[in-house]
């Protein structure tokens, strides 16, 4: 496997399970006294983040360092990128310095695919516009597997701004590939224009579905959506779709609450709810490092495919 641009690049359930097995090993590595292995020694990985994201970048950075890889950060604000250098010129310049992998985050859907066409190095999609965020979906799936024993057959509700969410798109792909039952919960204005071909159920009624969930996955509600006439107010959103204390009481005991972060406490999730034991957001972050180690190792360390 040369690139991870979409969840689909892993080739289905078997590929995702392989990532999970590797992730188990890297979770163990993280628990060692010296949580570091020389597996990617001599490899250079570059962070090319056109969109601000300290947490995702740090998670990748931790993963790379634990694999003994060298890293470089291409800081968009201060570079020739803002002087009008094209994306193509930027990535080809970076590659010329001798890198093995470029991890790209960009506000334009499809940018990682274009980057992969222009260079020989491996490309990891760390989030492209509204489109995909495959490592997030992998760590989300891994977290569910660790807490509930697996993903197949689990009933997962993804709640919130599906339309603009790359996390939602990648999660839908990963969860359904692993055999889960996925339901999207959102007001009509926050759903994509067409759900043809999406392996999901859809509902506008959060309260009805809560008692029937094994996982409630909350998406971040951004304030900008109000100015685009998509929702009248954050208050109205929370009333209809926020995971309030009252709503949490209707959940089954073992139901997990998840969120990709950063959380808007008081909007999509009540402050007290975010701190309940069933809210596994911290685990998601912790697993994120191990999952990203698995991804980087698969792309750069596991050698030539000898099929």
């Amino acid at each position, binding site marked *: 496997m040369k690139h991870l641009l979409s969840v689909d690049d892993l080739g289905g359930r078997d590929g995702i399970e392989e990532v999970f097995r590797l992730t188990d090993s890297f979770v163990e590595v993280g628990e060692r006294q010296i949580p570091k292995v020389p597996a990617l020694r001599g490899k250079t990985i570059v962070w090319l983040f056109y969109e601000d994201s300290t947490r995702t970048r740090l998670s990748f950075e931790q993963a790379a360092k634990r694999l003994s890889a060298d890293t470089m950060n291409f800081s968009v604000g201060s570079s020739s990128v803002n002087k009008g250098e094209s994306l193509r010129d930027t990535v080809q310049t970076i590659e010329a310095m001798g890198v093995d992998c470029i991890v790209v985050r960009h506000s334009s859907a499809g940018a990682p695919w274009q980057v992969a066409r222009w260079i020989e190095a491996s490309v990891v999609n760390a989030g492209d516009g509204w489109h995909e965020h495959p490592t997030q979906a992998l760590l989300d799936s891994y977290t569910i597997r660790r807490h509930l024993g697996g993903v197949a057959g689990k009933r997962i509700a993804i709640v919130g701004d599906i339309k603009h969410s790359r996390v939602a798109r990648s999660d839908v792909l990963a969860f359904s590939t692993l055999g889960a039952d996925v339901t999207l919960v959102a007001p009509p204005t926050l759903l994509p224009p067409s759900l043809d071909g999406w392996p999901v159920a859809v509902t506008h009624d959060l309260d009805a579905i809560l008692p029937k969930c094994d996982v409630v996955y909350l998406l971040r509600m951004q304030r900008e959506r109000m100015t685009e006439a998509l929702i009248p107010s954050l208050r109205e959103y929370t009333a209809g779709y926020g995971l309030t204390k009252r709503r949490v009481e209707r959940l089954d005991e073992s139901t997990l609450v998840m969120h990709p972060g950063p959380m808007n406490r008081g909007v999509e999730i009540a402050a007290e709810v975010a701190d309940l034991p069933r809210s596994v957001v911290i685990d998601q972050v912790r697993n994120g490092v191990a999952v990203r180690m698995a991804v980087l190792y698969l792309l750069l360390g596991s050698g030539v495919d*000898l099929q």
Partner: protein
Amino acid sequence: MAERERRSTPPFGGVFVARSRVMERDDINRALWRMAHEIIERNHGLDGVVLIGLQTGGVPLARRLAEALDQIEGHPVDVGSLDVAFHRDDIGLRPVLPEAVTNIPVDLTGSVVVLVDDVLFTGRTIRAALDALTSFGRPRAVQLAVMVDRGHRELPIRPDYVGKNLPTRRDEVVDVNEDGVDLGEMVKP
């Protein structure tokens, strides 16, 4: 060891075909018993001794060796397992995925680690294991116990406890299993 060997030598992913049996099951048991005594003798007892089996062939042997040690000395011995996939020197040259999770139940600082593997060949796996151990503390000493030493060392590694010395051709394959030790070759499936 056989599984790793299978995957990293041509024909990659082939099938092992045995040509001759070089040790029977009873021979293995006797060897384990002898090696256990040697470990106790060498270390003047079992104080601080930790057995670590290398995935996957060394793990069952480590367990059986620990049972033998316990029987002889009446002293339970800590056993761990170690997968060296991330410490190999051929990463990037061939597909290398860990077979199983590493589990080292104790802090190794000050201990006497006895690495246990089924077959000692080039020595590269042991080098990787020595590298991996450094992540778990600083042992007082590291010793090596193998059921079969088949020669063809590529690094300055030597075993402390050997079940059987077995001269082999480079293209031959040694398989240690429940019923005994077989010498054979890899055949393309």
